[in-house]
């Protein structure tokens, strides 16, 4: 199957690959997977405690080109947004941006899940702190 130029770009030159300190109170970690294809995706965010702005985001994905591109794009998009703004990102936005074909829609779902899981983890940490 032919990948779109944007997928290829993110795949060959992924942004924000890596990891953040999982133990930090400012970091939220989301680990999600799609059993049908065996993909796993880890996405981490670092949130400024004052402004609630996501200052940094990292990911590591084991999966197909579309899964890697979707998570790479997700980290680009969440950076600079507040937590609440980041929750507005929909998988369909990712599909549109990357022109994903129907068989690859689950990759975009996975990326949205990863964002939400990371934010959920961060929120839980804030409650535990309080």
């Amino acid at each position: 199957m032919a990948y779109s130029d944007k997928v290829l770009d993110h795949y060959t030159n992924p942004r924000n690959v890596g990891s953040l300190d999982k133990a930090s109170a400012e970091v939220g970690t989301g680990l999600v997977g799609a059993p049908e294809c065996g993909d796993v995706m880890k996405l981490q965010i670092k949130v400024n405690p004052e402004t609630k702005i996501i200052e940094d985001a990292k990911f590591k994905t084991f999966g197909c080109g579309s899964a890697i591109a979707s998570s790479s794009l997700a980290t680009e998009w969440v950076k600079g947004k507040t937590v609440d703004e980041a929750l507005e990102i929909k998988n369909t936005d990712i599909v549109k941006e990357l022109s994903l074909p129907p068989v690859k829609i689950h990759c975009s779902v996975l990326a949205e899940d990863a964002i939400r899981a990371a934010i959920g983890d961060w929120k839980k940490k804030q409650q535990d702190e309080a």
Partner: protein
Amino acid sequence: MSTDTKSAEKAKLAHECWSCGAMRAAHFCESCGRVQPPVPTDYFSFFGLPRKLNIDPKQLEREFYAMSRKLHPDLFVRAVDQEQSWSLEKSSQLNDAYRTLKDPVTRTEYLLKLEGVNLEEQSKTATETARAAGTQKKQMVPPDLLEEVFELNMQLEEARMNKKMGEDDPSLKTELADTRRRLDGKFNALAAELQRDWDEWDAVIARAESGEIVDTERTAVRDKMVDLVNRRSYIRNLVRDLNEVLGN
């Protein structure tokens, strides 16, 4: 034409031999033996089987060969056009049905599909629900398994990198070999677990056949099998990747 007459017509078509008018068996007319037109059917019904998971493989194989012989398109070269094309279509249906039901895992996956399981669709819907409600989506795979899959993939990546660079890391290799043994064990244990789920499923279907309402139980066993199939595909992929890195 009223709906009643329409459905009566349909029932007639479905049960009456097109050639001699007698009542027919599923694939051939019992009276004159002619091939009957293909009707949309699931693979269990194709073999005249109930929707149960314990199937005797020997019996299935015998049925398959017997039907293959009777449906073989070569037998119909002198038959009327429609019977020729029906035999061809049914032969290919037969092959698909046999291939699917023969293997325990594809049989289970096929049944789950018949029971309305669509992992991709369900995952998408769950995400949309979580988004709308502002809640957390429950992942379909247990978190500790995801963690294990992720960590192992990191190690595999390192091992591949070593290989590429011509470097050797014996301790990493030993660790991966240990992991492979452990996963092989886990994978093999799944067969016994699947058998237990099958027995449970078949018992539920037997109760449904005797007229009991078993919807809740049916969904519960179904979802247990979905969970098993998901775990299985992760473990299978990991073992495959381990074999590729370690060699067999």
